[in-house]
Every structure is written in structure tokens, then in C-alpha cells.
């Protein structure tokens, strides 16, 4: 029987990248400690701040909500849960009640903003329109751009000091690799534990960034959190290939993911020096912050014959 390297109890996880095994209690303590350390090291949350947590109902965002609620309650900060309902039938409609239940358990306010409300169309309809019009863009492009736009706008309307997302180590390393493959320096420049404030943008923090996906999952399962464990029906594309490649690499060469992250952190200051500062403007159509004349969301909606409904979200 594999024993915990710290207390000798039965191990539930072999942390091969660190040469240690952990029992259930030590795994939970370790994840909580990493979460707090990420916040402290990068000054992600200050006392008295209002943090809006993006919560989809998946294992990472539910774990993040619980961890943030615990953290904030001890430091006179406030956390509020925000869910973007993309309108994916048979998927998002199953996760919404899970978020509500977790928010109620924690005594945290929960707000929901839907694609239908904001754009007049669900993601299901948007994907159908994209296929009909042969835009050549995959569903993740629409979902990612539009969801991020709504998260920012809703967080701003909720008077958030920070917007917290539950990106874990695997997500961050996948993003590094994806932007490397696409040769997208400006996107690489924006990766990190905190993306600071620019006009119209709520600063974005990632307190789970150094927690491997498997440890985030174990944390949620061991704490018996109510989580939504289903695969998005639209998941696909190069993201999946990069994800599978990284998991294969990590299985055969433990610590690869952390090494990629650390190397990126060393390179990032050099990358940032090469990125020119761009001027933020307001989108000519919706008024949201953008570096272009029209924001990406309006551009994508326009291609489909859709437009923002022009309402406040909250």
C-alpha cells in the first residue's frame, strides 16, 4: 500500500512530479495551501475587495468558489458567483442548478447572464448560424470570445474589484502552448496570475493557476462538492490535441507541465518588452473596451446577422 509521504496514512494520490504521495487530508491541505500562496505571492486579493468568481459548475470553478469563499471570509473581502449561460442544451442547463446549490451552501450571491439575454441567441443557435453561413470558425471561438466579454461586462456592473477565473495549471500550460503554436505573442503577453486593470476591464485573477487539474478534481471529490462532470458537446479542435499531448508528456515525463509554466514565467518579461502598448477605445457598436474599431464580439455577431441587445446585464 502506498503511504502518504507526510503522515503515513493510505495515499490517494501519487504526486510524481514532486516525488511524494498524499493521503486525502494532506491533499486537501496542500491544495488549500497552494491556493492561499498564489493569492499572497501575486497579491491577487486585497482586504475589503469585492471578488466576482466565474463559476460554470465544473469541478475547478466550484472548487475555486469554495476556496475563495473560505479565503475571503477570513479577510473581510467579499465573493459573488457569476455564471454565463451560453445556452447549450443538455449541458449548461444541467450545471446551473449545481452552481446555485453551491452558492446557497456558501451564502454567496449568484448572478446568471445568458447569451440569449445579451445577444438574442444561444450558443446552440450561434453555432447553427455559423455552419449555415460557412464562417469557418469553430464553436469554441464564439463561446470563448462572447463568454469573456460578458464576464467582464457583468463583473463591471457588479462593481467587482477583481474577476476570478478557475483556470488550473493544465489550462494555463495549454494556453501557453496554443499561443506558441499560433505564434501569438500578444496573447502570450496577457497570460499570468493577474491581468491588471485597463480602462473598462476588470482585473482578472487566476488563483488556481498552480494547481494541476487532477489535484483540483481530487480536491472537489474528496470534499464531496456538488460538481458538474460532463463534457461540453462542442469541445474539440486544436485545444484537445494540445491537451492530450501535454497529458501524455506529463505521464511519461513528470513535472513537464510545471517546467513549461516556469520557463514561460522567465520569458514573459522579455515578451512583454516586445509588445507595443495599444490604445484602448470604445467599440463603435456597443461601447465595450477594445483595441479595434469594433470589438471582437460585435464583429462575430455581425457576421451572423446578430447584434448585442444593448441592455445592462445585471
Amino acid at each position, binding site marked *: 500500500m502506498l503511504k502518504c509521504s507526510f503522515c503515513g496514512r493510505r495515499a490517494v494520490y501519487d504526486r510524481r512530479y514532486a516525488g511524494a504521495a498524499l493521503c486525502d487530508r494532506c491533499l486537501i491541505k496542500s491544495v488549500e495551501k497552494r491556493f492561499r500562496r498564489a493569492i499572497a505571492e501575486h497579491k491577487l486579493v486585497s482586504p475589503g475587495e469585492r471578488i466576482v468568481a466565474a463559476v*460554470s459548475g465544473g*469541478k475547478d470553478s466550484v472548487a475555486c468558489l469554495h476556496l475563495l469563499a473560505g479565503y475571503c471570509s477570513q479577510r473581510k473581502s467579499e465573493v459573488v458567483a457569476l455564471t454565463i449561460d451560453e445556452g*447549450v442544451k443538455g449541458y449548461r442547463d444541467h450545471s446551473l442548478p449545481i452552481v446555485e446549490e453551491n452558492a446557497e451552501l456558501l451564502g454567496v450571491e449568484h448572478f446568471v447572464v445568458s447569451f440569449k439575454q445579451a445577444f438574442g441567441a444561444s450558443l446552440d443557435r450561434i453555432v447553427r448560424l455559423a455552419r449555415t453561413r460557412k464562417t469557418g470558425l469553430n464553436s469554441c471561438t464564439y463561446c470563448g470570445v462572447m463568454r469573456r466579454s460578458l464576464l467582464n461586462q457583468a463583473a463591471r456592473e457588479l462593481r467587482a474589484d477583481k474577476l476570478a477565473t478557475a483556470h488550473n495549471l493544465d489550462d494555463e500550460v495549454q494556453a501557453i502552448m496554443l499561443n506558441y503554436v499560433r505564434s501569438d505573442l500578444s496573447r502570450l503577453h496577457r497570460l499570468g496570475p493577474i491581468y491588471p486593470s485597463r480602462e473598462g476591464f476588470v482585473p482578472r485573477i487566476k488563483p488556481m493557476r498552480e494547481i494541476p*487539474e487532477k489535484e483540483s478534481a481530487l480536491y472537489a471529490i474528496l470534499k464531496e462538492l456538488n460538481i458538474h462532470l460532463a463534457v461540453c458537446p462542442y469541445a474539440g479542435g486544436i485545444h484537445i490535441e494540445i491537451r492530450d499531448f501535454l497529458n501524455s508528456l506529463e505521464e511519461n515525463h513528470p513535472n513537464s507541465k510545471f517546467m513549461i509554466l516556469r520557463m514561460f514565467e522567465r520569458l514573459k518579461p522579455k515578451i512583454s518588452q516586445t509588445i507595443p502598448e495599444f490604445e484602448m477605445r470604445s467599440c463603435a457598436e456597443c461601447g465595450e473596451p477594445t483595441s479595434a474599431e469594433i470589438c471582437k464580439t460585435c464583429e462575430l455577431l455581425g457576421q451572423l446577422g446578430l447584434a448585442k441587445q444593448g441592455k445592462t446585464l445585471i
Partner: protein
Amino acid sequence: MKTIAVSVRVFPGRKKQLIKLPARSKVAGLLKTLDLNPQTVVVRCNGKIVVEEERLKSGDMVEIIHIVTGG
């Protein structure tokens, strides 16, 4: 060669199936048989979370939970 038979259920979605493995197989061997990367799953054996080095025996009830869901 002696074999063992374990009952396996994969979440989300798949039905329970009976898998035959060589005697003294470990969880790692079961995952390899099912072409599953240990990085992407959490495994419970008889209700308890187990590591890949855990040895299986005939009659064990194994639940394999996919944790990489995307979206």
C-alpha cells in the same frame, strides 16, 4: 495464466462492464487496457480513491471518473 474479473464503470456516461485482467494486475494496468491516461481520471475501487499502483482482485467494483471535461 490466472486472470481476475473486475466490474468497471466509467463516468460520465458508460455502462458497467466486466473486464478480465491478468492476476495481480494494478489499476495502472486496467487504465492501459482501457486506453486511459491516468492524468485524466480519478479511480475509486470499492468506494475508495486509489492510486495507480493499487493491486486489483477479482470482484472489485471500480469507478473511473473522467475529470477532463472541457468547456
